[in-house]
């Protein structure tokens, strides 16, 4: 997979469980489906096999992958070789803290059953592979606004449904 990728801060984000299950993938650079599964396979092989206490960076196909382990989950971000690895570690941590705040002490199951919400959160942290917002409070506020809009729409739908049911009874 040799790409002439446009320079981005982050080419893709991967969340892999210790068992090698994919929990989230987000591609900011164009990779075909085939390439995506290859990347996931290769990287989980590399990252999951690294021992503890080693540095959080691996070199991979001319790029650098910054990863950080939280409990049984590996958060990986692929960046350009000349970019700031240390900052990407902070970006990962920023994302994790927001997940934690949103779900209230997040665990892997939250990310499995509410995987779409994990994506919504990521979309508030990164767009186009670039960093978007440094205030966790702002992001949480936005997310809860979105959620309440969804709730409102649901209630509306049920109340309409009830009204129809009343009328047709």
């Amino acid at each position, binding site marked *: 997979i040799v790409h002439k990728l446009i320079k981005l801060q982050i080419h893709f984000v991967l969340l892999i469980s210790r068992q090698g299950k994919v929990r989230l993938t987000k591609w900011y650079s164009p990779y075909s489906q085939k390439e995506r599964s290859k990347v996931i396979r290769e990287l989980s092989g590399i990252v999951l096999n690294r021992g503890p206490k080693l540095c959080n960076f691996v070199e991979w196909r001319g790029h650098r992958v910054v990863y950080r382990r939280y409990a049984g989950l590996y958060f990986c971000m692929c960046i350009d070789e000349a970019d700031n690895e240390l900052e990407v570690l902070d970006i990962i941590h920023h994302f994790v803290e927001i997940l934690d705040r949103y779900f209230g002490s997040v665990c892997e199951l939250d990310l499995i059953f509410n995987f779409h919400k994990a994506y919504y959160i990521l*979309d508030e942290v990164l767009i186009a592979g670039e960093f*978007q917002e440094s205030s966790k409070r702002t992001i949480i506020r936005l997310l809860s606004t979105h959620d309440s809009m969804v709730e409102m729409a649901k209630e509306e739908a049920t109340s309409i449904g009830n009204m129809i049911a009343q009328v047709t009874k």
Partner: protein
Amino acid sequence: MNPFSSGTRLRDMIRAIRACKTAAEERAVVRKECAAIRAAINENDQDYRHRNLAKLMFIHMLGYPTHFGQMECLKLIASPGFPEKRIGYLGLMLLLDERQEVLMLVTNSVKQDLNHTNQYIVGLALCALGNICSAEMARDLAPEVERLLQFRDPNIRKKAALCSIRIIKKVPDLAENFINPVAALLKEKHHGVLITGIQLCTDLCKVSPEALEYFRKKCTDGLVRTLRDLVNSPYAPEYDIAGITDPFLHIRLLKLLRVLGQGDADASDAMNDILAQVATKTESNKNAGNAILYECVETIMSIEDNGGLRVLAINILGRFLSNRDNNIRYVALNMLMRAITVDAQAVQRHRSTILECVKDSDASIRKRALELVYLLVNESNVKPLTKELVDYLEVSDQDFKGDLTAKICSIIEKFSPEKIWYIDQMLKVLTEAGNFVKDEVWHALVVVISNASDLHGYTVRALFRALQTTAEQESLVRVAVWCIGEYGDLLVNNAGMLNVEDPITVTESDAVDVVESAIKRHASDLTTKSMALIALLKLSSRFPSCSGRIKDIVVQHKGSLVLELQQRSLEFNSIIEKHQNIRSALVERMPVLDEASFGGRRASSLPNTVSTSNGTAVKLPNGVAKPSAAPLVDLLDLSDDVPAPSSSGGDFLQDLLGVDLAPATQSGTSQAPKAGTDVLLDLLSIGSNPAQDNSVSTPDILSSAQDHKPAIASLDVLAAPSNMMDLLDGFTPAPPKPANNGPAYPSIVAFESSSLRLTFNFSKQPGNPQTTTISGTFTNLSSNVFTDFVFQAAVPKFLQLHLDPASGNSLPASGNGTITQSLKVTNSQHGKKPLVMRLRIAYKVDGKDVLEEGQINNFPRDL
């Protein structure tokens, strides 16, 4: 359950998939779900479209195909409600990528959503556009995005800014439209807007020189002020990370300042103070602080030179390098690599620390450190550095040895101050990691050894010692076997002893032991075994006392199942048994290998411009390439000091070398008969006039010992069964006679150099199978006309050659015309021996004489 519902809830599907114990079970669940979703799609079910898409996304994440759901995303995006649009856009980003045509269908919906009255819907559209927009969409939607940069809510402005980055990267021409709105974003207070605005500004500067010029003039001071305020800002809980207010904003400001300062002294000047402040005041006990220092050092290194700042930056890297945190050391190594171009001296000061990092337990750090050490090596430090690396080779991880060995060999080759040091170091590497040494590296070592005549004894003894302790490093065994074969006598009699050496007692039988164990060792590959056989042949003459034993070893391999070994042992056995009188001449020490041409050939495989006889030997069309075994060259190599063959062996030798040719015929319209004789003598180069310097031509014709390729070429001559007939004196069964003389023989390229090609077509008269009519066609491959073109050919005794006059003596350039030449060859050993021919072609290019020679071994069989 509702009869209209399409199956299970999302949560239930995930549970069912998680409960699967095998991949097959999982596939079955997924198949069932996909079938239900497809059915719902076909029915155009609206109530559960939302849930079905969520399910598809989960299935997609597991790696199953979900293309059939792509249109559902578009339908959801086109629905009026926020929840539908939200999941629709998520599906769009997950299931599609920018290269899919379906994406074009969504442009209109996105456009409407960008103009939606609900700002959260605008946000959804911006996010999707930023993540997946194609160049076409970028062109269509750029005006909307540009307008949204001034939207009242900052959360939309920041999304629009990142979306703009994607747009200008896809379509750089659009950059100038964004310059003015971005200048306004840089003055904002909202961190999200500021961060994204600065990022957009940085990217604009990269794609557009006008933008760079504009921002450099108008915004540098303002950005410096923003950074200063940020650095000095009081504690802000919302943005605080490890006591630093918004490190993300810090880093983006430093990045933009780097772009503005690069190549501009005034802008660089304007930011000096704040950079110094960041470099000195930032706390470096947490990752966030170090990330800022990283960016600050990068900026200092990139902007226009300010000596003081650079010292500061290098010192920060020094501190990084001695940090206990692996991450910090890793980035330090990386940055020092870039700093070498700025201040190599300063980086050299950290050499010992960097060397320690090569031995780190972390593979990522080791790799970085090794790259860096490689850049730090120079003439003055090569010895201690190499020693450290070689010492480490002993204890390093197996999977690191390959990289490490390659780098060490490259350092030794590049900076070696003297031959003995080179040989010593290479022997150490071979002993520790011979299995990781590439072929060309030990080939080069053999060339160096061959050239260091005063070190032959020293080297062979050192190799013998090394082999006593380490016998499982393949390339060590090869080099040792080669040296023992060549210089075995020096090993036994301790000749050429250096002061640094301890004398060793090696008997002839000990030396043979070593070679024998190499050939018997199970792990030895074919090349090693072949080399060992040659070494034995050589030793059989050097050590007469072991001759019988060597013969036994050779005989054992006559039954080898490996053809190459079988053949060699048959040949060598024949030499040992039947040709005692010429053996010593055959196994003479190899002439010194030419370092320059060997190195040159390694450096580039470009053909020589004017083909010399050496060059043509390389390009001789050969049969199948045989494994390289340089020492065999010796066998064919007649140097000046070869004693004249005695009468009984003479025939054999001449036959072997193929030089005792039948009275050859020559053609050439302009060639005087008298002169032709001389040329022929030269060509035959045995028994020629002593005044003639045949020392050049003989080895050249037979085999150029100057590099490996000719060695292989001549090896083929020897190894191809067809040519070996004479040597084996007929105890190889004759090839079966063809039932009849089929008229069709394939044409061959008989000779090809960089400038000339000769092709042969064959035909036979029915009823006269011994005679072949050959029609030769010469083509000029160069761009110069060849004049005074003369072709000569010679064949061994068992052949008769008749040359007709050539069609001309001038050959137009670039293949615009040919010379044809017909030859008639009669093979007295038809069916037993194939044709073989040596040729010489002389012509003039621009008045300069050019001579090309070659031997044709690739005649079709049975001619």
